[in-house]
């Protein structure tokens, strides 16, 4: 599969959005060369604000700008916003429902060598806990651009999680994204893998492997974790009878928890979960970490077989 950087695509999309809307302001915390808000900074220096290493201050400043009519994009690494600034997210953005779009890069363990201080693996649980927030994890660069455009055009606080490494392209150019609508990436009748972020490409790879073993695996990309496309989830459970949820996140509070909560109420079926469990990772190459911590096509394959066996 071809690969592209979700961060770079975000940076370029931000410039495009900045040209269309003069009320878009971008804040960063000394990481613009990494989050790629640097493109925007170069084109619109008067609308770019480097807040230095003051993430909490940055979130509250964003709230003040949004309360004064601005559409504010805020970028830094996922850990430094979701984890470090939770009280500011809660009181400054979530409760007052302000128009601030957090686009956090370097989500998950695929950050790699920087190690646990830089690997956000609790961020989805934290941000999904916040009322009014929309939480999106794009599967690739194409979807990243679409998600940023959707966020700019939709009122309210957003958390969009991107990755550090280049990620496989799973969508053709021209793909149109609908916020809150899950996407069936591959049809199948025996079992459904629901994945988000970089795990969508991994799930598609697993489905290929399973097809060779006569297991017909449906793959659904749940790019919007909150609000959840409950209809698509219940339909998949009804039609395929078994669900596997794959995410680059801890076991608790992320996509798996949210899908399970929906299905427990609407359509209980056998479920398995591919995630990081209840532990921190370590430094290493992204591929090595994904292998060690159970986030490969092989791990999805095993979980699919367990789920199908329990039908």
């Amino acid at each position, binding site marked *: 599969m071809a690969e592209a950087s979700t961060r770079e695509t975000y940076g370029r999309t931000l410039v495009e959005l900045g040209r269309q809307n003069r009320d878009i*302001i971008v804040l960063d915390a000394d990481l613009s060369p990494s989050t790629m808000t640097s493109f925007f900074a170069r084109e619109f*220096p*008067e*609308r*770019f*604000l480097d*807040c*230095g290493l*003051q993430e*909490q*201050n*940055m*979130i*509250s*400043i*964003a*709230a*003040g*700008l*949004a*309360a*004064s*009519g*601005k559409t504010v994009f805020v970028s830094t690494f996922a850990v430094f916003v979701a984890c470090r600034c939770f*009280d*500011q997210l809660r*009181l*400054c953005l979530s*409760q*007052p*429902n302000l128009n601030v779009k957090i686009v956090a890069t370097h989500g998950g363990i695929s950050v790699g060598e920087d190690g646990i201080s830089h690997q956000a693996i609790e961020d989805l649980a934290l941000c999904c806990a916040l009322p009014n927030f929309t939480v999106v994890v794009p599967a690739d660069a194409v979807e990243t651009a679409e998600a940023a455009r959707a966020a700019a055009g939709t009122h309210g606080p957003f958390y969009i999680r991107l990755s550090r490494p280049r990620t496989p392209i799973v969508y053709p150019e021209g793909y149109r994204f609908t916020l809150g609508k899950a996407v069936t990436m591959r049809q199948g009748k025996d079992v459904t893998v629901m994945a988000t972020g970089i795990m969508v490409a991994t799930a598609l790879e697993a489905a290929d492997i399973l097809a060779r073993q006569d297991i017909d695996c449906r793959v659904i990309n749940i790019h919007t974790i909150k609000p959840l496309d409950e209809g698509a989830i219940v339909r998949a459970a009804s039609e395929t009878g078994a669900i596997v949820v794959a995410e680059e996140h801890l076991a608790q509070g992320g996509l798996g928890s949210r899908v399970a909560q929906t299905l427990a109420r609407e359509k209980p079926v056998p479920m398995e979960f591919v995630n990081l469990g209840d532990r921190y990772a370590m430094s290493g190459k992204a591929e090595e970490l994904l292998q060690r911590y159970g986030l490969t096509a092989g791990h999805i394959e095993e979980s699919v077989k367990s789920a199908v066996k329990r039908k």
Partner: protein
Amino acid sequence: MPKNTPLQNTSPGNKFNLSTAELKEMARKLRRHTITMIARAGSGHPGGSLSAADIITALYFRILRHDPDNPQWSDRDRFILSKGHAAPILYAALAEAGYFPVAELQTLRKMDSRLQGHTDRTLTPGVEMSAGSLGMGLSFAIGVALAARLDSRTYRTYALLGDGECEEGQTWEAALAAAHFKLDNLTAMVDCNGIQLSGRTCDIMNLEPLIQKWQAFGWHVIDIDGHNFDELLAAFPQAEKTKGRPTVIMARTIKGKGVSFMENNVAFHGKAPTPEEAERALKELE
């Protein structure tokens, strides 16, 4: 961000424009509301409302360009109450200014009231920020002041902090940033009442030398008696005239000011007066 451009505020002045004698009378009235509201609610923070009463009275009835009939007026001066636990004194000022009926003050902290225990910008006309978790208000005010500069608007932004609140790290992040961004359209005020929830600030977490700290962070500092209207009314224009850097007004105040048994009394940081105490307090404020 663009280079700092000098801003001239050409909007009409404060529509109340009370005299010093009238301000004193208004402050007394707001203190009475504070006691009544908190006593009726059965909980709340009288001490920090009473210490801030004169600052808030001066702002709403003499300094701020605001329109109670149009709380969202885009050129209004913004007042951000960072020390959100002083919500009662702000509510009292907003009600007396006409943002909502004075009778509504008695719903403070009750179910379905627009007057929450700490300020909520989604509910109360005239309230700019949801606050109550300390340390966030000055940062929020920076965002509001930056928006004014971006849009070439002439409104000014005021943020009221507690001195205890200056123990929060975020306050100093904001202090650094406001000076770095040269926000001369922003005025911070510190209600220096010397007392926080569990004791004197100098015993809990010493802040001194506080003036030198703000100066070292790049701020213009004005040190005044926060209960003296002449000093208050002189400080705000001085802040407005100061260009190229933000101003902080260090307002020396007395916690619980105006009620003898609440003055400098730690117990009344976050405790409602009993009905008997409220009666005594109101008598003193007659």
